[in-house]
């Protein structure tokens, strides 16, 4: 079989997830023996409309960006959403907590009415087209990306954790944030990062998205036990969870 052609596209984002692919360095060179990159604006000058796998980074924040994404979907056999901006809308969705005209005026002042500054409510990739695979995180983890891509090439389904960050955090024997009076979204967020933030003295702020079927009651109990309110938790959930299906 010839090597599958892979194209990477970026919409509104910080391009930090593409950077994790670059950061794979030798491992990336190794991956290039099994795939054939045909379009990657940030890394190469070549451009092509023929590809088997499309990798999408970023969120859709303007109506004019929906058509190109739909076209990519039509051309690609497999479509992968890369990173939180693409999988859940990520930090971009914070914008949606405000009135859009007000958002534009805040940043551009009197120029806010200029037509090229149009902006729309933020959409994750799956809100515009069908997504076959998600690579979670802000940023993604290069190893997980490589694992998912290799599974897919082998026709296997990648195994992504269905339990919360707390499970990994406890395995690493971290002191829990709540013990120090700090809030943490670990109980409701999908694991897979190795509880990276709590292991670095910080709290989980939810970049991998909500775990399927979050145990809302348990989360509420934790709040109560440590003298916090659901309101406190909601404030933290805004960062990566604005306007998402799950609410407390």
């Amino acid at each position, binding site marked *: 079989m010839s090597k599958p052609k892979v194209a990477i596209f970026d919409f509104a984002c*910080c391009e*930090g997830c593409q*950077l994790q692919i670059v950061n794979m360095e030798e491992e990336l060179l190794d991956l*290039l023996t099994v795939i054939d990159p045909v379009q990657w604006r940030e*890394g*190469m*000058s070549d451009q092509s409309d023929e590809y088997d796998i499309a990798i999408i980074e970023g969120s859709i*924040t303007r109506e004019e960006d929906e058509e190109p994404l739909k076209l990519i979907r039509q051309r690609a056999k497999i479509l992968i959403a890369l990173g939180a901006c693409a999988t859940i809308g990520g930090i971009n969705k914070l914008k949606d907590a405000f009135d859009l005209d007000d958002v534009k005026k805040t940043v551009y002042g009197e120029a806010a009415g200029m037509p090229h500054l149009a902006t729309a409510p933020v959409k994750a990739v799956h809100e515009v087209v069908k997504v076959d695979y998600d690579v979670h995180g802000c940023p993604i983890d290069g190893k997980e990306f490589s694992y998912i891509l290799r599974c897919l090439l082998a026709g296997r389904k990648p195994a992504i954790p269905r339990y919360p960050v707390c499970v990994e955090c406890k395995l690493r024997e971290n002191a829990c944030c709540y013990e120090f009076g700090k809030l943490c979204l670990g109980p409701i967020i999908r694991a897979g990062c190795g509880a*990276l933030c709590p292991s670095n003295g910080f709290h989980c702020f939810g970049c991998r998205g909500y775990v399927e079927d979050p145990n809302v009651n348990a989360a509420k109990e934790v709040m109560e036990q440590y003298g916090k309110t659901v309101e406190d938790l909601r404030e933290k959930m805004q960062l990566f969870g604005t306007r998402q299906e799950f609410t407390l």
Partner: protein
Amino acid sequence: MSRTIDINVHHVTRVEGHGNIVVRAKDGKILKNEWQVPEAPRFFEAMVRGKSYEDIQTIVSRICGICSVTHSLAAIKAIEDAMGIEVSEQTDKLRILAHYGEQIESHSLHVGYLVAPDLLGQKSVVPLASSHPDVVKAVIAVHRLGNTMMEKLSGRKTHPVRLVPGGFAKLPSADDLLDLRGMLEKAIPPAQAVAATVAGLLDKIPDFDRDTEYIALVKPPTYPFYHGQIGSTDTDELVPVQEFERVINEYMTPQSTAKWTRWHRDAYAVGALARFNLNADHLLPLAVETAKQFGLKKGCCNPYWNSIAQIVEIVQVIERSIQLIDERLKAGIEPERAEVTPRAGTGTGCVEAPRGILFHKYSFDETGHCTGANISIPTNQNHGNIQKDFESLVPSILDREQDDIRLLMEMLVRAYDPCISCSTHYLDVEFV
């Protein structure tokens, strides 16, 4: 004979973010010659409103994946300025180390992965892996060093988790610093190898000078990235960072979704070449030697040479990091972090991003929730200057083949290392 030039590079490749180059000329007359920035705006200044001072760096770090440590630090400095927090010398120096890691990572990525293919006549770094394996290996070694520094100091390669107002959520150990010291020593030869390779390709770098105003942080007798005041090659005046708004003078233009800036002239440049032009007298010995190897001297105003200044800075920052680590190892790592009590106020944070001077300003209410923000990123400060360079460059090369013109313009944009994802994306040449 009528000759039409029509260049339309829609989304320049091998840059961070989206930018377009549009040139239209007929019979030697230039009808259009524009640097356009169509990147979807992301509205960070609006999004942080109402958010706690504890969450700001986590949000604004996402302005740019390639300068996430820089954005975090600028935000943290602004918060500390607003709330009157003094951090320890240990915090200060360890932050600088993390920040140096980002300079190394970003510069080596730019020079090695994005610019080198132009100089070696390739379309990307991928074919270089087989045609110039030693160069690629050296670039990877330096790039990895930068990443490891950020990982050990800030918790991961991109989007730091340990950098917080007051200090570090978790401190590196003395062993971490020792490991880094070893890596830094080992990275000097590959960094010099990259320098030697590029020094052998200087004839591939276009000969183009345009007298330009350069702006960067200045703090004699140092070559600063993290402390200092705002300096310009057009004046001896040093401006306190809190007054940055009178330096940047932002304005909007129809050809860009990003705000442009100007100070003494109709545009100015920031970045490695700006820093070099203002602070070259304070480089350390190895960096001085590297600059000599290229013949790079203060007063250089060939924008293509920004990449050369970046190579000099890689060497400078490696050398300085070793000194900083030695100081820290001697002092010992103390478990400490400054207490942060939220209070109402406004503060400014300024640091040098790899691409140039960066300003963050926030106001907070008495509970520490943000009421307003102003962020000015280096790439936006360079847009106007790129346009001015185009206006000077294109007439001088109009008699060349269209593909040559396009390549020279793309290389020019790439030399600025634009990071348009910073609330904006770019690179397309439209020859119409």
